[in-house]
């Protein structure tokens, strides 16, 4: 029973054209519990479609602390400990990432920062998959905290 005739996650398949057992959900389907109807929370956009300027999780207890925790995992390698864009990637490979104190970046509304984390921009990939929406908002809160600290 080491090798069982069933499809496990991340296993190979002899049937599908790309050899994977894992299939993407069909476009347009909605899973239970994934209605994600709140466009503010899930996309950072308010009712009119513009990026929101406030963090929807603003009042939450220890939001920035959670954000710090998540930032250290996902963001710090490129953006550095203080958010100046000179993390380990800069030290090793000389690639400058976004500096949070750059006036252009500092002027972005919260919703747009959320959008950048979700979908990426330029060389940066989107972190939609690894980071759940609430944690992304926590990171936004922490980014704001970093920006305040360095002023």
């Amino acid at each position, binding site marked *: *029973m080491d090798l069982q005739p069933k499809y496990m*996650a991340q296993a190979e398949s*002899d049937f599908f054209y790309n050899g994977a057992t894992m*299939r993407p*959900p069909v476009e347009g389907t909605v*899973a239970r519990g994934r209605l994600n109807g709140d466009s503010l929370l899930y996309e950072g956009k308010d009712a009119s479609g513009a990026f929101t300027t406030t963090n929807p999780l603003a009042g939450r207890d220890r939001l920035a602390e959670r954000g710090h925790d998540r930032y250290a995992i996902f963001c710090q390698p490129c953006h550095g400990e203080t958010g100046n864009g000179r993390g380990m990637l800069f030290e090793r490979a000389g690639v400058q990432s976004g500096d949070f104190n750059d006036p252009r970046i500092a002027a972005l509304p919260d919703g747009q920062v959320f959008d950048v984390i979700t979908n990426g921009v330029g060389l940066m990939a989107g972190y939609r998959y690894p980071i759940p929406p609430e944690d992304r908002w926590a990171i936004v809160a922490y980014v704001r905290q970093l920006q305040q600290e360095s002023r």
Partner: protein
Amino acid sequence: MSSMKPPEDSASTVDRSTKAYWRSLDRLYDSPALEGSSPEGDPNGIAEEFLAGASERPDAMSRRTMMSLMGATFALAGATGCRRPEQVIVPYVQAPEGQLPGVPEQYATTATLGGEAYGLVVESHDGRPTKIEGNSDHPSSLGAASPWLQASVLNLYDPDRSRTVLHRREGEGEEGLAAASWDDFQAAWQSLAEEAQGDGGARLAILVDGSCSPTRGRLAEAVQQRFPNATWVVHEPVNDDSIFEGLETATGQALRPVYHLEKAKVIVTLDADILGTDSGALTQARGFSTARSKADEAGSMNRLYSVESTMTVTSSMADHRLRLKSGQIAGFAAALAGELGKLGLSLDLGSGGASALSDQALEALPVIARDLQQAGSNGVVIAGRNQPPEVHTLALAMNQALAAVGQTVTLHELQDCPRSDPKALADLVEGMRQEKFSTILLLGGNPGYTAPGELGFSDALASVPVSVHLATHVDETSQLCSWHLPQTHELESWGDARAADGTLSLVQPLIAPLFEGRSLLNTLAAVSGQANAKDYDLVRQTARDSWAAGATEGFESAWRKALHDGLVADSASPAISPVLNGGAVAAAGSLAASSDAEDMEVVFLPSRSVFDGRGTNNSWLQEMPDPITKITWDNAALLSPTTAGELGVENGNRLSLKLGERQVEAAAWVLPGQADGSVAIDLGFGRSAAGRVGNGIGTNAFPLRSAFAPGFESGLSITKVGGSHRLVQTQEAEVMPADRRHLLLREATLEHYRQHPDFAKEQEAELKLGSLFEERAYDEGYQWGMAIDLNVCTGCNACVVACQSENNIPVVGKDQISKGREMHWLRVDRYFSGPTEDPEIVFQPVPCMHCENAPCEQVCPVAATVHDSEGINAMIYNRCIGTRYCSNNCPYKVRRFNFFNFTKDTPELMKMAMNPDVTVRSRGVMEKCSYCIQRINEGKKVAKADDRTVADGEVRTACQQTCPTNAISFGNILDANSEVSRQKQSKRDYVMLAELNNKPRTSYGAKLRNPNPEWPGSQQRRDAETSAGEAHS
């Protein structure tokens, strides 16, 4: 055993716990068919426990030969066989947001069956659907699923599904179906359509199946607009048209009934399997059980009178059962209406119809009528789909007179639901024969197999030059056509569907089409001129135009919400108060009263497993025993013992059934409880092009069926043709010794229960139980237990198929089942009691008992089965060496052994149907019900992540979740507020074989029946049963 005396029986009540139970006629009469079963030579009954041949391997290879052959293989293969195969990790390239590999998602969708739609929630592992459940928000399923719905996921992964478009090139005859593409078909259709449009489609015929869908209706109209002269036929072999016609005759409106049995105190069924195969069975079962289970709190129960020609799952719930031929039931209905009229209800039908009925029925009529009249608007009369329209008219009239319309039954507009017209089908076939058509499109269905035999559909089809069939398999119809188009399964297509009460729900795909199939909607759109319309866009268009048109939150939000919830909120249609046409009712009354049922009749029933043939290639359904006969992998002609005696027919005899010019051969089965002079046969078997599983199994009853009397017909003649057919049952193989049988099932009348509330546990009160081992106190953490309420279990076997789906239970086939090796972890035992002609029937689901003092754990030499701290008897597959001592020691015989590697040759496609969370067992390993330990662990994990304990109802076993009547409760028995604790606290709760001190965690709620004290002959019967019970102690 002598210390257990049956309790004192009071004059007005009967204690069913001392009734003598018998499993089948062979058992009752100690038939020589069961070897070694004589009590004298075999006092412990050991020989009867193992049938002859059980230990013999199918082939005669000796161990030495096998070793030498294997040695040769090793020598030739070298050392390469010793390496582990290389496995690679294949992650998502573009991962879906928020989903983790291995953590399942759930999608709400809908399944259609005939004219009804059932809301489902399907569990999807990494983008592949693996388990179907009912959608608790949907009114047609209420969270439950029937055996067919549970097994339909396997139809998606059927390796015999058609994969490409097939086209028979001109002049190549039978072998000419060659692979083609959709583009080829589109091109061909283009030219055919242009040609057809010339005369408005006069030489075009289209046949569709009977599913109810607004988008389908819209597209059908578009097709009919494009081809106004085309012939349009709807064909659904098992349908409710008789009901619709009866209601329309009475009211002048197209209506359909929805029954609310939770409000019903008295229910009379006329040939209706309300808890089994009726369209509304899932909701009806739920409503019925809600009313039934009030016996403890309210001290009152509903009462069911079942008037039917064959045994059904509804029979097990019936408090009184009248055996009448299906042809006599119309007369009964007229007589019942007459009785109600005599009692003052406004039913003016005159008298009549009573003459053809038996004395028992005649005596029972006034009793039933009185009970109904007293129930008033809490009474209901339900007629089944097999009965002719006049019976439905009468039933509606009776319900109206009782003021039950609007209460126990509501009538709703028949929307989007096409009706099969047998005349249209007959005209179509005649037209085909006369070469009236140049093109015929068969979109869905399998008319080559399901069309009534007397029409000669298949032969007529040959006369049409171009025939196109859209189907999931290259079936009997496709083999006769010039084009075969692969159809997608419902789990891979977009669509919409309307339920009986008008609720609209959407069908969303769980996986992209596995093959090159397209849905019915795509094809209809192509026929109507929209060549490449996607079904997604079509359904959205319907939504935009209809239900989502005025949505306040915007179209997209309304659409997504409907997809998420599994239904469109507030789309149920209002109940209609009809005005009955008195003349029509009177006409129906006289038509019903004049029905003549002298001759032998044949009754056609949709199979409780494969339905009308759509499930024939589904191995789970073939393996599922028919609840009443317990026959697997077959169907039989069912006869009553009297009829069989008159004809000299025994079980397995081959019979020729002849009705006019039509004739089929079937194996006979003697069924206690079948009406005399009536032969019942299941539809859906005897297929020739179903696939590797279904071909050649059983008898095809469709050739015998007539176009205008699809439910039953009289005039059958039966002759024995010699030879016999082996019919395999699951029940005979495991035998409990005769003197213990009546202790497994506790049953009483409601009256007896009121007077002796402790009847279920009386026999254990005198036991002094001790144990050799130190007993452990299970008083911490979660302690899992299960309670099965026999009072509401209808024996439908949905739990069996659900368990098979959830736990990757292998299918073993007819031969192994004949040796008692079926692998179902959960079995539903059925017991007859009473006279063999007219017995009562009771069902008892038996999963693993998870005994605290488990006999199996004590004897395993390698500790492969151990008890965990939460009370679960755990099975460790890897440790098991296959001694089978545990199964030997289990008094309930719930353990299953993999005698062979049943999953060795699993087709690649079927591997996707397996639940990744459960081991797929190999040869030599014992398995049994695990209380769905994978679900328990998942529930505990989720609760722990949330820093809380598992809430009651959060972890549900597969059997519990699918049960239409909520007969099974499962949960933490240490939690006094949990549902399972409440059930176990009931006075009716008992455990099987308590005297063995196994302390099972699975307990049962004793069955209660609520007989009418005025029922004729009831005193006589009670006396007979009491004496039978005394003889047994």
